[in-house]
């Protein structure tokens, strides 16, 4: 079954791409239980659509680079779940959309159907646990902060264990999230690619569990614990920069069902122990520079 969206198209009445934006919105709503938001009405008042927009995943459809629908969402301070820019997507297929036709021909309607099929297909294909289980992990409240030059390295003070290879694990019952530390994201700088581990694969402690890559280097993620991969953070596929922005929260990598943590804990570092490792690495890094 298709995901239910709150669908916000732009109102580009005077351009072909704008007309397509509305057509796509209608098709999405017709093929699922999604609800349509009128951008003009929503612009002038919150009352009618605020609840729909806030309680459902938001699909934003912009016709052209003016991105009026996206700007409206930004003005309303809402989070976008999916975004489609009609002109860009058409260009990727070698199709240049002009100002006309305003009344869509069969060709444009077919293109709309292709976009809709892709939007809805991804939902069907997505593994249920791919973006995380329903567990709520505590947000780190306090950090050990170590500063060197312009770089600030944070280490959560509680609830996390670390490896010497700069990965972390945060436990929640028999499940655990894993990720990389500030040292990795600073060393790599802007992370551009994320290759996730395969769902349901078994991983050994210190085995490889995905790859991240920047313009500077490729980093193989070392799993701090053994177990089965139960979820991966699919948001990183389109926004790997989340690892740079906050590697301990939105930048988590995967969720592991633990198989032998009581024994493996001895091989992990506490925050204070990891701080010593970090200080040495940062010092070595600066010497090498």
């Amino acid at each position, binding site marked *: 079954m298709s995901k239910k969206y709150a669908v916000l198209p732009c109102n580009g009445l005077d351009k072909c791409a704008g007309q397509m934006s509305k057509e796509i919105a209608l098709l999405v709503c017709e093929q699922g239980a999604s609800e349509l938001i009128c951008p003009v009405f929503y612009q002038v008042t919150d009352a009618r659509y605020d609840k729909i927009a806030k309680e459902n995943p938001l699909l934003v459809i912009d016709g052209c680079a003016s991105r009026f629908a996206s700007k409206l969402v930004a003005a309303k301070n809402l989070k976008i779940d999916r975004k489609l820019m009609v002109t860009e997507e058409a260009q990727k297929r070698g199709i240049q959309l002009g100002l006309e036709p305003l009344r869509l021909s069969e060709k444009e309607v077919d293109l709309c159907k292709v976009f809709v099929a892709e939007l809805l297909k991804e939902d069907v294909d997505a593994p249920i646990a791919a973006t995380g289980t329903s567990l709520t992990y505590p947000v780190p409240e306090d950090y050990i902060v170590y500063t060197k030059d312009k770089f600030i390295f944070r280490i959560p003070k509680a609830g996390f264990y670390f490896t010497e290879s700069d990965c972390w694990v945060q436990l929640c019952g028999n499940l655990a999230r894993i990720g990389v530390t500030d040292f990795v994201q600073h060393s790599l700088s802007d992370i551009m690619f994320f290759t996730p581990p395969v769902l349901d694969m078994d991983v050994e402690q210190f085995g490889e569990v995905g790859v991240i890559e920047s*313009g500077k280097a490729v980093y193989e993620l070392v799993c701090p614990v053994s177990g089965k991969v139960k979820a991966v953070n699919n948001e990183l596929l389109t926004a790997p920069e989340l690892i740079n922005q906050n590697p301990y929260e939105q930048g988590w990598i995967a969720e592991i069902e633990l198989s032998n943590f009581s024994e493996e804990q001895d091989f992990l570092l506490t925050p204070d122990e990891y701080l010593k490792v970090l200080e040495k690495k940062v010092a070595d890094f600066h010497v090498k520079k």
Partner: protein
Amino acid sequence: MLKNEKVKVIPCSGMGKVYGLMAREATLHAVRHLCPQHAETMCLAYVVTGDNEIKESMKDSTFITIDGCPLMCSAKSVAAMGGDIQGEFKVLDVMKEHRGVRPGTATELTPEGWKVVEEIGGIISGRVQQIREERR
């Protein structure tokens, strides 16, 4: 029709990263060599001063922003000052199409880096052309 005909192309400052340098060089390539008749650049630092003269000149202008990294400083700053942004580009998006390319450092580009800069300049120039056609 907008009064101010030339599209303003605003790169981020991106001083500490190669992608910032690429954004600036791509902007200069576009406005100096590819479409000097139809585009010009402005200093982002000047834009964010909020000074009356700049606010006034922004009123009737169309902007394209080009950012080095996902922080999108240029796009956010121009939007915050009320600029009409008709194109937002990010160097990292183009670099993703050139996996493995080493573009250089924050102060010096490699020949590979210059090639990507020329490509980004072409993207900017293409958007300038589109905006002109949309105005007609």
